[in-house]
C-alpha cells in the first residue's frame, strides 16, 4: 500500500502506476461549479472511500471516474486510458474492466435476477448458454444469492438487490469495482454484511475498489484510504487513522456529526409572538 499523508486538496499524492489518476478535474453545470480542481490517485488493489456530505460532488466525481461523463477540464486516467481523449472503442473496452454497483442497484425489472447477471456475459462474450448459466450461478453464489436467480428484482429485499447488483458488476471479472452508497437505505446488520462482502471480494479478487459513501462506520470498516470532499473540493486524502485524528474543522464536523446551523427555538418563538401581536393589532 502506498504511503499516505493527509494532504491539502491542491497537493498530489505520488503513487507509481496508479489505477486511477484524477488531475485538476473541474466540472461545472451552467454557472454552478460542482468540482473544483480535483487531484486524486488511487493505487492498484487499494480500497478508496470517497466521503462527503450531500452535494459535495462525490457522485459527480464517481460518474467521471467510471466514464459516464467526460472531463470538462483536467484529466482522468483509468487503467492507462485517458477518459478525456479516448475514443469510443477504448472507452468501451475500459468499461468492461469496471464493475459498478449503483445506489439503488439499477437492476432491470423486466428480467430475472440471473438474466440481469448474465446480461454482460451474453452481450460481450460468445460463451455457450450452459457456461453463461454456470458463471451466473457462481457470481450469485459469491454474493449469497445462489437460490434467488429465478426471482424478479422486485421480489428481493433492499440488501438482496444490492448484492444482486454486485453479482452483475462482477460478471466480467472487473479490475475495478465501484460502489455508489452501498449502505444507503439498509439496516445496520445488512449494511455490515455488505461491508464484509466488499472486503471479501477485495481480498479474493485483488480488485481496486472505489466506494462513495457518507456512512462513517462502513467507511472505516472497508477503507484503505479515504478522500473527503467539501463543496466540490478535495479537502483531505489519507489513511483511516489520519482522517480520524484530523483537526480539520470540516472533517471534525463530519465525523462528530455537528450540524451547520443549530436551530434556536427561542428566536422562532420570539418571531412568532411578534407575528401574533402584529396580527391582533
Amino acid at each position: 500500500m502506498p504511503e499516505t499523508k493527509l494532504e491539502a486538496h491542491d497537493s498530489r499524492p505520488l503513487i507509481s502506476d496508479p489505477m486511477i489518476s484524477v488531475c485538476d478535474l473541474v466540472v461545472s453545470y451552467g454557472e454552478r461549479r460542482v468540482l473544483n480542481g480535483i487531484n486524486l490517485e488511487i493505487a492498484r488493489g487499494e480500497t478508496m472511500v470517497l466521503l462527503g456530505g450531500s452535494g459535495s460532488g462525490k457522485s459527480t466525481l464517481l460518474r467521471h471516474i467510471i466514464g459516464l461523463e467526460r472531463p470538462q477540464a483536467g484529466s482522468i486516467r483509468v487503467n492507462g486510458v485517458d477518459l478525456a481523449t479516448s475514443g469510443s472503442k477504448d472507452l468501451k473496452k475500459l468499461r468492461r474492466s469496471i464493475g459498478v454497483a449503483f445506489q439503488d442497484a439499477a437492476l432491470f425489472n423486466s428480467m430475472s435476477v440471473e438474466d440481469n447477471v448474465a446480461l454482460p456475459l451474453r452481450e460481450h462474450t460468445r460463451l455457450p448458454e450452459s457456461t453463461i448459466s454456470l458463471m451466473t450461478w457462481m457470481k450469485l453464489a459469491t454474493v449469497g444469492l445462489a437460490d434467488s436467480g429465478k426471482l424478479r428484482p422486485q421480489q428481493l429485499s433492499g440488501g438482496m438487490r444490492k448484492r444482486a447488483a454486485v453479482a452483475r458488476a462482477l460478471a466480467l471479472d472487473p479490475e475495478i469495482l465501484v460502489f455508489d452508497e452501498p449502505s444507503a437505505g439498509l439496516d445496520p446488520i445488512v449494511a455490515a454484511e455488505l461491508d464484509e462482502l466488499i472486503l471479501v471480494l477485495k481480498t479474493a479478487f485483488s480488485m481496486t475498489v472505489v466506494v462513495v459513501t457518507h456512512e462513517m462506520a462502513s467507511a472505516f470498516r472497508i477503507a484503505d484510504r479515504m478522500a473527503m470532499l467539501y463543496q466540490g473540493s478535495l479537502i483531505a486524502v489519507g489513511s483511516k487513522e489520519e482522517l480520524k485524528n484530523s483537526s480539520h474543522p470540516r472533517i471534525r464536523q463530519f465525523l462528530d456529526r455537528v450540524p451547520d446551523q443549530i436551530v434556536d427555538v427561542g428566536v422562532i418563538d420570539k418571531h412568532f409572538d411578534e407575528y401574533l401581536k402584529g396580527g391582533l393589532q
Partner: protein
Amino acid sequence: MISSLFEKVGKSTLRHLEYVGGITIQIGGAFGSLGQTLPLVGNRLRWRSAVRQMSAIGVEASPMVGIMALCTGFILAMQAASELHRFGAMNLVVDLVSIAFTRELGPLLAAIAVSGRSGSAFSAEIGSMVVTEEIDALRTMAIDPLEFLLAPKYLGTLIALPCLSILSNTCGILAGGLFMRFSTHMTFGVYLRDVFQAIILRDVITGLLKSVAFATIIVHVGCLEGFRVRGGPDAVGRSATSAVVKSTFLVILADVGFTALFYLIEGK
C-alpha cells in the same frame, strides 16, 4: 421589455434547435445500430427483442386499429352517402372510401393509434430507466442504450406500422362495403371490383411510405422524450404525455408535407 422578449425568443429557439439536434443525432445513431437488429447478420439478442417489439406494437394493437378503421370507414361512407345520394352518385362512395383510406386515413389512423399506445410506452419505459439509473448501468456495462433499447423498437415499428396500415386500409374499405351492402344492396363482389378500379398501386405504396416516416417520428420522439427525463417519477409521466402530443403533431405535420409532395408530383 424588448430585450426580455428577445431573450425569450432566443431561449425558445435554442431549446428547439437543441431538440432537433438531439433527435438528429439519435436518428443517426439508430441507423448505425439498425444492422445489429437484423436476423442472421446482426445480434441474435437484438433480433429477438425486435420480434417482441413487433408483437407488442403490431399484433397487440391490431384489434384497436381494426375497430378504429371500421368505425371511421362507416362514418366516412355515411357522411359521403348523405351528400352524394342527392346527386345520384352513390357509386362514388366506393371511390371516396377506397382512395381516402389507402392514401390517407389508413396510415394516419394506424400512426395515431401507435403513437398513443406505443409512443408513450417507449417514453415511459426509457424515462423510468433513466430515473432508476438503468441507462447508466447499461453504459457502464459497455452496452449502447441506442442499440439495446432503441434499435429493436425502431425495427419493430418499421415493420409493424406498415402492416397496421394495411390492416387499417382493409378494415376501412370493408366498412364501406358493409355500408353499401345495407344501404344500396350492392353485392360484395361488385363492391370489391369497384374498389380495385378506384385504387391504384401507387396509392398503396405512398401510404406505406408515409407509414415508414410515421414510424420514424413515433419511435424517435418517444425514445428521445424518455432519454431526456430528469428528476423523478412525475417527470416520467410528463415525458409520456409529451411524447404522444409531439409525435401525433409531427405525424400530422409530416402527413401534410407528404400529401403536398405527392399532389405536386401527381399534378406534373
